[in-house]
């Protein structure tokens, strides 16, 4: 008798959970940025939800100074970045996951590379974890409302063409 009762309860819990899941959490197509702080290159805290680009698309690229394909991606885009900006108004935000071993090298590397990106530091991987990034590079595309509409893992030569196509789709 006791057993039966507990079984019933289990069933109730499960069905309750199922209903709760379906009614409460709808998988929305577009996803928002998590409420996480990163650091600017001059040490200030910056909440990533405050990213802003006048309603134009934003590309977020997770990278590190020790990651070859990441640097390849960002260097390749750097060559054509001005054209992209003129055409679509896009802004690229590069988030370095370098920890304290190589974090201080980020600014010298970025400046020496002549990048025009907005660069932030996520040195204990708080944002990386919140955005489900397992390995770098990992690229996200945000629409004018800061919602993630597309993402891509890894980088091989030519991937920037697909990224541009995606940006063009949502550019005003």
């Amino acid at each position, binding site marked *: 008798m006791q057993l039966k009762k*507990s079984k019933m*309860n*289990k069933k*109730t*819990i499960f069905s*309750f959970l199922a209903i*709760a899941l379906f*009614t*409460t*959490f*709808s*998988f*929305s197509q577009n*996803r*928002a940025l*998590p*409420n996480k702080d990163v650091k600017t290159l*001059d*040490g*200030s805290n910056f909440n990533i939800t405050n990213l802003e680009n006048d309603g134009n698309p934003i590309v977020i690229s997770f990278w590190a100074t*020790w*990651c*070859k394909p990441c640097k390849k991606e960002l260097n390749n885009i750097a*060559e054509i970045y001005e054209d992209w900006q003129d055409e679509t108004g896009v802004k690229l935000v590069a988030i370095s996951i*370098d*920890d*304290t*071993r*190589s974090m*201080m*090298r980020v*600014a*010298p*590397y*970025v*400046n*020496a*590379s*002549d990048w025009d990106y907005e660069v932030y530091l996520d*040195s*204990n*991987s708080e944002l990386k*974890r*919140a955005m*489900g*990034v*397992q*390995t770098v590079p*990992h690229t996200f595309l945000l629409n004018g409302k800061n919602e993630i509409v*597309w*993402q*891509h*893992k*890894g980088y*091989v*030569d*030519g*991937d920037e*063409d*697909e990224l541009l196509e995606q940006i063009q789709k949502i550019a005003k």
Partner: protein
Amino acid sequence: MKKIASLLMVFGASFSGFSQELNTGEIHGDFDLNLQSYQEDELIGATAANEVILNNAYLNLNYIKGNFATGLRYESYLNALADYDSEFKGNGIPYKYATYSVDGLEVTVGNYYEQLGSGLIFRSYEEKGLGIDNAMDGVRLKYSPTQGTYLKTFIGKSRTHFTYSDGIFRGADLEINTNELLSSENKIKTILGGSFISRYQERSNLIFKIPQNVSAYAGRLNLMYGSWNYYGEYAYKINDPSNVLSASKMNYARGNAITQNITFSKRGFGVSAEIHRTDNMTFKSDRDKDGKAYLINYIPTLSKPHAYSLLALYPCATQADGEFGMQFDVFYKMKKGTFLGGKYGTKLAFNYSRINGLNGGNSFLNDNTEHSPMLISIENEELYFQDINLEINKKINKKIKANFVIANQTYNKDFLEGHVKGDYGVLNSTILIADISFKIKKGHSLRMELQMLNSKQLEDYSAHVGSYENGLEEPAEGDWGMGLLEYTISPHWFFTVQDMYNYGNEITEKQLHYLNITAGFIKGANRFEIGYGKKREGIFCVGGVCKLVPSSNGFNLSISSSF
């Protein structure tokens, strides 16, 4: 049961309270699976696993709604990959949290990761590739009372495999950004920080009085002026003897660490100079346990993390117990249109690092409150590691890009790998790398890597030459070559063949090939990779932490996905 049901009802009811915004909550996460088969291969020393196949898998789930978030991670080790600690066994949900923030206060209960300053006294983080996860379990508060002041404080236990440490940690950190605080436009930006951590662990040593509360503190200063950036931090830890009643463990030495870094950069040019010194600064979540699962602080390795395999064949590992090191970096971009810059510009990256022992040995070896090793001492000290390397990155024309590296590394194999002094002595290697990409047509590229490592053994080793057959240590591996071909079809496919060849091994039977074939498919946020090949036994490092990877031979499958 009833209790749970009613709890859930309340939980549900409180959610339906948000009915107006019901559909704005979001669930996201990521999934990762790594499966490897293990076949025996006597030549490379690879052993077969009883299970034939070993597997690690993770699923992260995060529910986010405005300023509230909750989530968990399911971890499955059936059984754990051979290079993981065997204590990672079975399935579980070792990571779960809930957090919200309101008016500058952020509250987290459950598991969280945290770092104080640069991590010298405390860092809780995860590095799945290395099998590191010392997440905290407890409560954390972050508060920003005014603009420019950031306070955080936490209490918790540190994760060790599937359990939690004996020690309880209490930590606090205050950071003041003076320019933000005073809303000042001063050209000199100053950020000051102070942090404190204390571990409580009951004493069980009946004879000696050892501290139950072991504290460590650190102060830091970050100054910025124009293109200059200075960061310095000093950390101190009180004595922390273990309970074990043996002379080598009963040690009342205190610890300290100091790090100094200055950088200058402007468009096309950047330099960085860094020194650090650490003395008896290993801080663990359990005073009586050893192993990386128990480490609770992070002393970054003072050398450049390398991604090319032969450059990383003999990596440096931090000696938190005692070392002095320095490092310099220069980044320079030769302008387009100049003689050396060519049509597209040429990028140079120079790096030098050197790490040696402390003068007179560290404080732990000299268990004496009077002893303090010299602050800076380089000459005549035992060299642990040295790396001089130059990287040249050049776009040759629209279709060809090249990256060249030349390096010379000195690696104290005896010390860094824990051998008896004189077994191998010190290795000196010269490494040359050429990495060239060809664009074949839109989306199709071919990449080729050629690497060469020429290595010789220095010092003390001569006594052993030719005598390894008599039971003495074998000679070091000698020269290596490596070749890689990678064909990629953007945005979905990649195929790679690589071979590492130990052609210079003095023992002819050990002149082996380590051949690997990999193919992968990527579509948006999903990535599939399958490979077959042999891996060399060695030290594998990511972001400054290293693990020993055994030789292996077999298939591997890896799937990762984010949503």
